[in-house]
């Protein structure tokens, strides 16, 4: 699959930095209980403009598109980098409304995350907005994370920023570098980003952007797992030849390669549809995420099989990749996404079956 020179350069830059920094001991440290993230690495990525690349430069971004941001997410996921890259990315579109907060994200000073799965109510008293309610399945909900919260006010959906408030419970997940948090808000003071009643479009845009981001991460995970499998079956010998010479080993890997080739086209399409700003981003994102998270899990499972007993050991890097793949499948919910795609296609809004 061909790629423009600027994108190739960006990809190589992220990949080089991560492979230099993420030595095994550093990864292990980030995974050790209670779990955490690598703050120095996060700040380093931010200082190189790799956090929020799609934001304008006056917000600390690089003025690029989501297409470029997707490349960064893909590479971060391929390295299973212990940084809150996905979570911060999810919150970014909403932070455009608050330049000072956006700059805390792009500078690496504060990780952000998005709270949109739950029931949160917003009310205004004496000129101050307050939020109450509960939400779950929040990616990377650390004590220090800034929160972008989708909340229902009398006038409709609104978007709020919460910094350092609310009762936060962290649940470790199969991906030790990425927790899923639960949040309880009780009259928690919040800063309005978009007042209730005016947030429908941006909430839909947040969902579309989340789907494209999950797909980009999945692509990185699947690609790396397949690379590990290929490397192994070229070298590992049985019955006097590399196991990759046996069709029973090689052909399933070809199928996983084919999945990922097709996934790459879908991910790019979803990213460009977002950048285009027109309609269709929700369905493009749904198609890309549903296809790619499944492709990533299959690539990991195919790689585990190709590696034999080595593939099921704790020490092998596949363990992290598979954990991330399962995390992505669980959060993306591909069955629900496919049902949404079917609905759009049956209704004749199939973004491209014209």
């Amino acid at each position, binding site marked *: *699959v*061909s790629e423009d020179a600027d994108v190739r350069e960006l990809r190589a830059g992220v990949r080089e930095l991560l492979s230099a920094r993420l030595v095994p001991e550093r990864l292990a440290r980030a995974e050790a209980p209670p779990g955490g993230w690598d703050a120095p690495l996060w700040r380093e990525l931010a200082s190189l403009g790799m956090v929020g690349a799609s934001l304008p430069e006056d917000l600390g971004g690089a003025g690029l598109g989501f297409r470029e941001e997707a490349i960064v997410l893909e590479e971060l996921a391929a390295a299973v980098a212990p940084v809150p890259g996905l979570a911060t990315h999810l919150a970014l579109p909403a932070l455009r409304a608050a330049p000072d907060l956006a700059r805390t994200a792009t500078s690496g000073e504060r990780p952000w995350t998005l709270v949109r799965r739950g029931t949160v109510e917003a009310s205004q008293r004496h000129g101050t907005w307050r939020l109450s309610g509960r939400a779950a399945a929040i990616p990377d909900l650390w004590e220090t994370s800034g929160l972008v919260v989708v909340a229902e006010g009398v006038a409709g959906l609104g978007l709020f920023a919460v910094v350092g408030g609310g009762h936060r419970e962290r649940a470790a997940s199969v991906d030790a570098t990425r927790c899923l948090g639960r949040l309880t808000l009780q009259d928690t003071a919040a800063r309005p980003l978009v007042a209730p009643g005016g947030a429908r479009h941006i909430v839909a845009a947040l969902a579309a952007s989340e789907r494209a981001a999950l797909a980009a991460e999945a692509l990185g995970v699947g690609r790396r797992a397949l690379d590990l499998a*290929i490397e192994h*079956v*070229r070298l590992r010998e049985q019955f006097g*030849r*590399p196991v*990759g*010479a*046996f*069709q029973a080993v*090689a*052909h399933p*890997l*070809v*199928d996983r*390669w*084919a999945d990922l*080739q*097709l*996934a*790459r*086209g*879908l991910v*790019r*399409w979803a990213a460009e549809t977002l950048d285009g700003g027109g309609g269709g981003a929700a369905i493009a994102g749904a*198609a890309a995420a*549903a*296809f790619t998270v499944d492709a990533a899990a299959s690539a990991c499972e195919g790689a585990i099989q190709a590696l034999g007993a080595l593939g099921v050991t704790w020490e092998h890097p596949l363990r992290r990749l598979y954990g991330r793949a399962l995390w992505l499948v669980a959060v993306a919910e591909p*069955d629900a996404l*496919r*049902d949404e*795609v*079917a*609905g759009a*296609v*049956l209704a004749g809004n*199939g973004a*491209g*079956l014209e």
Partner: protein
Amino acid sequence: MLALDMRAPGIVVRPVRQLTGEHEFAEVFLTDVRVPEACAIGAVGDGWRVAMVTLLHERGTLGVALTASLQRQVGRLLELVRAARPDDPRIRERLAREWIELRALRLANERGLEPPGETGVPGPEWSLVKLRWSEANQRVTRMALDLLGPEGVRHDAGRDATGTWLRERLRSRANTIEAGTSEVLRAIVAERVLGLPRSR
């Protein structure tokens, strides 16, 4: 490379009847057939190159043609689902999968694949589209028959089956065999794209 006048003496054509009942190809027997010199295509001795260039032209556009034909099939399938079971979650799941696969194949054709090289050999990436198209077409025609129930397998002898889903399903079995079997295509990708050792 020679062009033959099929009416020339010494040519016997025995059509091969297929699963669909149609004759798309034939066995051809040649016995002492005389061919005028003017019927040579390209220079004598240069036939291999002519054959390769011909294949290049066939394959260079095949991916696009196959995807376009799949798009027609999925469009027809969509009409069928709308009319039959638009709310059946199992059918919706399968429809979405096929629509996404079609979208991905179209994207792969539009901008994902390298153009064929100047060597006359199509790039191995081409195998991807052929491989996935053939399996998608088999699933789509299967899904259509699943939706049609007993009506789908009705076949009155002597009636032209052209365009029916039954004909399409029967025809689709050749998709993973013609123009490179799926096994050969996987072997090409394994060796030339993934860099795995030769299997022979």
